[in-house]
């Protein structure tokens, strides 16, 4: 499409306004940043940041679609170990805003810290403080739960009712600072006694509806067995959750069961997993008593060596009162001698639903994703990326494809930079995937419905105990619209790299 020479003039005025807003916002940001840097400078060396406790993407070989990740907000959480100070800021609409900051210090074997989460408009969304010893932990302020048993988390309103079948939860939960305002947030206090025998308690008020959440839990971890119990109440509804796990003597097999009874009835998750020789399998099964079609399941099998692996996964669940959703995936990874890996994933998803208004609706989506490392030398690696999605409905087939590459640069383990460039094509009402880089270091597939070009870069530079990182993304649509977003972060490590 040919554009007028003057077409960009109004846009340029807006660009100036964005620069003005960015400059206007800078002093406040600088002041807060200076405050945190000051705290870092005076903090004792025994500082460590409370990090996200979950690999949000799971053990995938190729990146997962964002919609398949249970807690996508953790993708932006910086997972670098032993960062004592973190300041992260986001650039949006031309304005730089502090997004998340945290600092902690230790004295007399007590570690204490505070973190701050700021919203897109600069407003403070969460302030969280904590104090910990080797055994005892106290968190207070605006909290987000991590690692809560999945069935209990659903009943307490801390997680959405998931279509996927999660593994039973046997870890004691952590209540800490939220990674983003998209988390389920609570205002209150949590106490935990950690060790082989664990006890924890929570009293808080949900940030969204103000209802009171009270929960109490305990757990025991043995060499071949573990169990945990949770009692909780959120508003008028109560939940009792019990989970147990048994491991085989050599540790290669696991049987775990979680059962919960609450306002939405009884639910059970059972999981078996075992590895033997080149074969690894896992099966999960969930039943909900109050649902008409209450059973969901997921079976996965993996075979192969480090050089060649193959994984097959089938999953499915009912969706709503009449619908269902299922998925089958075959994923392979091959590492030829002396060359980089080639990974491919093929699969299909099928969704069916029926409603009085829309009638019967069915869609089948077939997809393929591939990543191939073409060459790697002298700290430079080029990887080609490609994906295709074909969605078939009664209206026809809608296609979406993407093709691009990722250049990874590394310099003496001190600095790294990833530059990614992708072209995306998508039919009208079709969808394509593009690889998204996240501040936390993860890569996930984002769905886009319009053709365009996406470019992004993520890098980090380590100078002594300090780490400076950044992420920039830009996307140009076929309509001529341009969207830019960026994040920068500064971290301070507990001690010099290589010394512990």
């Amino acid at each position, binding site marked *: 499409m040919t554009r007028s020479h003057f077409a960009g003039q109004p846009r340029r005025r807006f660009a100036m306004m964005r620069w003005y807003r960015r400059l206007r916002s800078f002093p406040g940001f600088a002041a807060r940043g200076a405050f945190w840097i000051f705290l870092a400078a005076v903090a004792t060396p025994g500082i460590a940041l409370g990090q996200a406790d979950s690999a949000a993407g799971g053990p995938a070989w190729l990146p997962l679609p964002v919609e398949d990740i249970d807690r996508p907000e953790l993708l932006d959480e910086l997972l670098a170990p032993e960062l004592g100070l973190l300041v992260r800021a986001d650039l949006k609409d031309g304005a730089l805003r502090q997004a998340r900051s945290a600092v902690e210090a230790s004295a007399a074997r007590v570690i204490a810290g505070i973190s701050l989460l700021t919203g897109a408009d600069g407003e403070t969304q969460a302030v969280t403080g904590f104090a910990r010893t080797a055994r005892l932990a106290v968190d207070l302020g605006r909290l987000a739960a991590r690692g809560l048993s999945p069935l209990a988390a659903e009943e307490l309103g801390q997680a959405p009712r998931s279509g996927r079948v999660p593994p039973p939860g046997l870890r004691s939960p952590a209540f800490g600072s939220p990674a983003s305002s998209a988390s389920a947030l609570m205002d209150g206090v949590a106490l935990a006694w950690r060790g082989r025998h664990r006890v924890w308690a929570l009293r808080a008020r949900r940030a969204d509806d103000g209802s009171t959440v009270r929960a109490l839990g305990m757990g025991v971890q043995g060499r071949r067995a573990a169990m945990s119990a949770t009692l909780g109440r959120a508003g008028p509804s109560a939940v009792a959750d019990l989970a147990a796990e048994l491991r085989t003597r050599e540790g290669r*097999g696991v*049987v775990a069961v979680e059962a919960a009874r609450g306002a939405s009835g009884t639910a059970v998750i*059972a999981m*078996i997993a*075992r*590895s*033997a*020789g*080149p*074969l690894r*399998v896992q*099966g999960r*099964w969930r039943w909900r008593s109050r649902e*008409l*079609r*209450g*059973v*969901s*399941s*997921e*079976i996965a*099998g993996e*075979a192969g060596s480090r050089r060649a692996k193959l994984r*097959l996964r*089938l*999953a*499915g*669940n*009912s969706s709503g009162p009449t619908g*269902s*959703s*299922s998925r*089958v995936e075959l994923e392979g990874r091959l590492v030829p001698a002396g060359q980089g890996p080639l990974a491919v994933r093929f699969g299909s998803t*099928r969704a*069916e639903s029926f409603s009085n208004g829309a009638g019967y609706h069915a869609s089948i989506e077939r997809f393929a994703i591939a990543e191939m490392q073409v060459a790697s030398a002298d700290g430079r690696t080029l990887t080609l990326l490609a994906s295709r999605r074909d969605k078939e409905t009664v209206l026809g087939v809608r296609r979406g494809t993407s093709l691009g590459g990722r250049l990874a640069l590394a310099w003496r383990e001190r600095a790294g930079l990833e530059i990614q460039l992708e072209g995306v094509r998508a039919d009208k009402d079709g969808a394509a995937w593009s690889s998204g880089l996240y501040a936390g270091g993860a890569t996930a597939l984002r769905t886009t419905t319009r053709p365009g070009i996406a470019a992004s870069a993520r890098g980090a530079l380590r100078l002594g105990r300090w780490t400076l990182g950044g992420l920039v993304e830009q996307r140009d649509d076929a309509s001529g619209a341009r969207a830019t977003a960026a994040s920068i972060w500064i971290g301070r490590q507990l001690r010099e790299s290589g010394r512990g």
Partner: protein
Amino acid sequence: MTAAGACSLCLALAFASHALAAFEVRDATPAALGAASLDLASDPFFTSAGYSASTSHTTLYQSDGLTSERAAVAFAGRSARLVATWNQLGFPGAREHVLRLDIEETGTRAVLLSMVAERLALALDGEPSRGGLTAGISILARVTLPRGSLECVLAGDRLARTGGLDGLGVEPSVPFALRLRSGAIALAWMDRWEPSGRASPRLVLDLALGRAARVRMARGMKPERSGAAIAIRRGRLEVSAGRLDLDKGGTVGGVGLALVSPDRGGRGGRP
């Protein structure tokens, strides 16, 4: 009227699951439910030598009176295994009866053969029984891998049929399976292809929990379904329970009980 009776039974099954027709349920034991495979003969949870006798009861799709009962006796010798099965499925007034005889080669050969003969009968109250005989074959090929084995099973189910089955919708099919075994794990991709082009693939996971317990889980497609079953053996007694759930609705649940001869260490052969 017989056709009408067959239709009524089909309708009952079709109401519960539009994937099923007359005589299409081959096996509704917990072992089959765990494999999400009503349409295939199930593999036993445990392999044992000598005599065994088993029975099971299954309720289908919460339809009033729609049940399946099965009784089987088996003898596993040095080079062959013989299984005789009686199965009935239906509701009061309309029942399918299947007598089945399996002769399976066992041992350590790379390729093992087996033959199946069935007598199918549809019994409706006040009407003469109608049915016929079928026969099929099955081939199992085993490839030894460095740390396990790969089994490939290809069968021709109901390839030969007598004329009495005309009009009852009994058709041949080609079941096949690829099964990887390593230690206590078996992972199988199974399917059954029919003349109409219909297929119903499934992934079946078998897992041994010690010497006394076996767990079987499966996920199938077309229709989308989940299966789960557990079997526990104590001495000469084997107890099993299984459940099959269709994503679109419908549950099949069953329990089984078996008496087996004392374990003499097994003799290999078919799974």
